[in-house]
């Protein structure tokens, strides 16, 4: 199956996946999450630094996944959303809690949760999810 998790992959992405650490181009102030290695606008003139996102944001769109891909079958139904982070970029993430409370434009904050289990490798994957802020 295509979603392939590996130890080096998780190691490479741990700051981002576990702590919402992205990057920022201090030349033009654009922020990037997932972290970008270089600024597509400034290119060679860009200067990239690490940047900590607060995890606060707003629902741009969402759906309820009822037929899941391999590895996620036992979590259905679950909500997946696109979140506009306050600092200025977007990310896909699950929203936990009452499905009926999820709406476009609702505020969310990030929480740290189990994402899935990898039966092949016996690994449990954790990462950032979101919950609705009342």
């Amino acid at each position, binding site marked *: 199956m*295509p979603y392939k998790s590996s130890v080096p992959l998780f190691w490479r992405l741990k700051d981002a996946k576990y702590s919402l650490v992205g990057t920022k181009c201090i030349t033009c102030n654009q922020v990037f999450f997932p972290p970008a290695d270089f600024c597509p606008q400034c290119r060679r003139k860009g200067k990239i630094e690490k940047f900590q996102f607060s995890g606060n944001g707003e629902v741009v*769109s969402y759906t309820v996944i*009822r*037929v*899941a*891909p*391999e590895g996620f079958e036992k979590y259905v139904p679950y909500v997946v959303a*696109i979140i506009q982070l306050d600092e200025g970029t977007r990310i*896909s993430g699950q929203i936990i809690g009452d499905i009926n409370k999820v709406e476009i434009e609702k505020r969310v904050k990030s929480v740290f949760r189990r994402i899935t289990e990898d039966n092949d490798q016996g690994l449990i994957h954790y990462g950032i999810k979101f919950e609705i802020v009342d």
Partner: protein
Amino acid sequence: MRRVAVIGAGYTKFGEHWNKSLRQLSTEAGALALEDAKLEGKDIQALYIGNMSSGHFIGQEHVAALAADQSGLTPIPATRVEAACASSALAFRQAVLSIMSGKHDIVIAAGAEKMTDITGASALSTLMGAGDQEWESSIGLTFAGLYALMAQRHMKDYGTTREQMAMVSVNNHKNGSLNPLAQHPFEITVEKVLNSSLIADPLRLLDCSPITDGAAAVVLVSEELAKRFENPIWVLGSGQASDTLALHNRNSMTEMLSTKVAAKIAYGEAKLKPENIDVVEVHDCFSINEIIAIEDLGFCEKGQGGKFVEDNKIARDGERPVNTTGGLKSIGHPVGATGIRQIIDIVKQLRGTYGSLQINGAKTGLALNIGGSGATAAVHILGREY
């Protein structure tokens, strides 16, 4: 620039071919195209094939050489092109470019996918190889999920209704009921769509194209040679564009920049406008995508796609017939084959000899093939005359 024409075309029955392998399907489609062109294998100078994920579906890469081998076409150059569900429109484009370049004069372009040798769940996961595995697949997103996200926002921003999306599927099944090669050649109703099981809200089973095996192939020739063939159909424009792989990295979720850019190029090359297009094939992997495509291709204003469908303008006898032979929904969606299957249906309409599927008087046609959630789009415009 050197002009290029399609002079042979054919696709296999689409469906679950438990008794046929990828190599058999590819060979079958190639033979159909050659027969249609009244050419022999030895006339072919190069082969392009679109295929998304044979590595996962059947454990086989290097499928262009395999197709050339199994069809007895070696030692001609054989090249596989991949761009998820847009793989074969890109293979078609490379075939066109290779003739324009002057390197070749007669080229076969094919697309093939064998999806049913693995389980449905495994196929769904394989399809997510088209999305961003680090930031989309990893959180449990599916393809239906990505298009559901677009649908939710399209409904919110433009008032597109659940029923309008259902009408896309109804139209395509109605057309597909006329197509003997379709996987699901029967009519459905709006009610049936709305009562089918939820896959990713608001999308239901009958909003989604199926898992399919199939192959499609065309023969392309240079301007000079085209004159020797009956009824050549001309490639008037070829546009291709890319966008961010992840949906969340785009400014808008209700339009595809890749489609708009590709369409602009294709219209420009063809010197045609949306209102000059007689028959249209769009990529209805999910019903919402047909609505978005109709808007992005300029057949109506942004946000009016749902209304356009509701007003029956996409019907075979409507203002702008779309997916006249069934679309991905009814014909099926063997991902790597779809792009060329679309082009073949345009070619057959433009020849004017498509039997019960014929849209009378069609002189120009457009095919839009999309990869993933829109990170790749390819638009081809074809015509009876140039």
